[in-house]
């Protein structure tokens, strides 16, 4: 079974530039999550999709961050304009459903490491 795919793996941009990250979840997983992990901290949920609908974006800085999940499969996360404090690893995760019984842990991709200069 293929895992969660993310690209790019690394990105370096100047502040005030824009950047986009892409995620392809595990096939058949209805729920998709974007997390921000700042160095030395645990992942923080930014947004959660159920199929192609947003179910929780309460911690997404909506003035600069946006995300979409077209057709309930792939997802993109965009930052525009980027700030220095956005430097972090952006992790995408997926699960069968919001509550998936025995194998209901969220499966994470390798992340995109963003550096804002």
């Amino acid at each position, binding site marked *: 079974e293929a895992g969660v795919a993310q690209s790019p793996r690394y990105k370096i941009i100047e502040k005030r530039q824009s950047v986009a990250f892409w995620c392809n979840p595990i096939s058949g997983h209805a729920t998709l999550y974007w997390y921000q992990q700042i160095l*030395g*901290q*645990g992942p*923080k949920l930014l947004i959660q999709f159920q199929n192609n609908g947003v179910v929780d974006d309460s911690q997404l800085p909506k003035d600069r961050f946006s995300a979409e999940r077209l057709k309930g499969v792939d997802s993109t996360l965009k930052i525009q304009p980027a700030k220095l404090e956005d430097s972090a690893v952006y992790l995408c995760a997926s699960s069968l459903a919001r509550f998936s019984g025995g194998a209901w842990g969220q499966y994470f991709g390798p992340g995109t490491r963003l550096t804002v200069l």
Partner: protein
Amino acid sequence: QKEVEQDPGPLSVPEGAIVSLNCTYSNSAFQYFMWYRQYSRKGPELLMYTYSSGNKEDGRFTAQVDKSSKYISLFIRDSQPSDSATYLCAMRSNAGGTSYGKLTFGQGTILTVHP
């Protein structure tokens, strides 16, 4: 106060040692407790999960939950250099609404097992 507190370490132990990793939490609604392992430059991978209080064992790993004390632990027996990673505790409640399925993570403990 953070909802989940985890001692960041770092923790360095010799091969074969017993490792104890811990988290405390403040939200009494948390019902599901997980431990994730994160190798350098990788995403977290689910290691153990438990529901409510009690113990769960899987090979060299034992997870314990004490809801009365709001305290969870992960024990690693006969630790190996390959166990060197960051260990993250994570929790979620059974509450409905927009928070359903949302995980709250601790900050992670960096573990190094040296030969």
